[in-house]
């Protein structure tokens, strides 16, 4: 009985370590993808899966974080319509706000920010997801690949293509083209 109690304490401590190390990053990951008011509920579901499958959570903290992101992504996919369930999960960006904080930034950056905000909705969700995993969620290519369930090579190709598409949209936006890039029907392949 004593060893059972000890084992339970160890298990709980291990979960505590996983939970505390990843909670904030996981919450941010989810907030980029769902309405902020739902984010904590989703994180709760993900952590419950982690507790239940603690033996499956990688020991390395970065890998564990990526594992949790993968569970969160699957959770978000599963709550959608059947037809959409295999699609990438859209990522939203914040609003462009100009203010005193811009004073220290290069004008090119400020202009680029507005262009990206305009171009972002033109990207496919697959492209959004690839860029967000790398730039916003801060994952390495192997970690992002694990989240998506694809190979690292495939992720690098996907990211490269997504960046290229974003650059093209930004350029079109900058040039004042009201219909940047490809027709809408091609922008969100299903």
């Amino acid at each position, binding site marked *: 009985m004593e060893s059972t109690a000890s084992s339970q304490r160890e298990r*709980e401590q291990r979960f505590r370590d996983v939970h505390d190390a990843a909670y904030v990053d996981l919450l941010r990951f989810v907030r980029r993808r769902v309405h902020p008011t739902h984010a904590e509920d989703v*994180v709760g579901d993900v952590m419950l899966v982690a507790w239940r499958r603690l033996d499956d959570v990688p020991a390395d903290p970065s890998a564990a974080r990526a594992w949790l992101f993968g569970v969160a992504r*699957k959770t978000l996919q599963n709550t959608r319509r059947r037809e959409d369930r295999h699609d990438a999960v859209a990522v939203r960006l*914040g609003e462009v706000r100009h203010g005193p904080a811009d004073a220290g930034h290069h004008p090119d950056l400020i202009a680029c920010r507005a262009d990206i905000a305009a171009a972002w909705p033109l990207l496919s969700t697959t492209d959004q997801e690839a860029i967000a995993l790398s730039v*916003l969620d801060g994952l390495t290519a192997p970690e992002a690949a694990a989240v998506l*369930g694809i190979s690292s090579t495939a992720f690098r190709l996907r990211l490269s293509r997504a960046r290229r598409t974003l650059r093209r949209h930004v350029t079109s936006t900058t040039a004042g083209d009201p219909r940047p890039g490809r027709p809408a029907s091609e922008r969100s392949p299903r």
Partner: protein
Amino acid sequence: MRRHAADTVVTEALRHLDPAPRTDMTEAERERADAAFARIVATPGDEPVPLEADRPLRRRSRLLVALGLAGAAGAAIPVLLLGGGTAYGSWTPRPEPLTDVAAVKAATTCRTALNVPDRGERVAMAERRGEWTYLLLAGSGTEAICLMPDDLVGQDPTAREDFFGSYDTDTVAPPTLDPDRIDETTSMQGSTEEGWFSSVEGYVGSDVTGVTVHTSSGLDIEASVTGNRFAAWWPSSKQSSDQPAQTWSYTVHLADGSTRRTS
């Protein structure tokens, strides 16, 4: 070099647009996180747990736990009432019972998929409609419902998304029924890769020999009746503005050959 510089600016600009920038958690957020943590570790860690532990599970309105097995996640889906659908093309309104061997295999697949340990639940219902196997496992206070294609029965369900499972650890006690009565304890909607479906489960009185479900979409479905339980499922569609909520009623068939209608 110019492209590299442009990429750097784009990356920096994207980070400025991050809708969830790095900030410290507020006191309220920390308290909610701590409360959620406490609730989670209070559940058995090596056993399946309801994914929406805070929400009460009630008769006729319980929440579902649908497991997409390609990943390690589950998600709760609210119950919806349905219109008719066209998925599950092989589905039949009349069920076929499973052999005992097939039922045992299906139970194993169901437990594996839901990560449900064998706690003495028995196979309360095992039926096949077309190429789909439905299983109801019932134990003391627990119930598991699984819907899977026949070719998954007895197989490793990992990485399959054409499986549906729900696990309930707060089931109602069997009701005391008059001999000619039925009691629908659960109605729910779920989905697999094949599409949305509705299902009903419940108890029957001792004189009930059969139950037919009549849906507002025009289906007449023969429920399986085994022991004191009945169950049926049918293809449906997710409710939307052009798919009004579906209702259903029952015809109860009695041992003396008579029938009675009930809602």
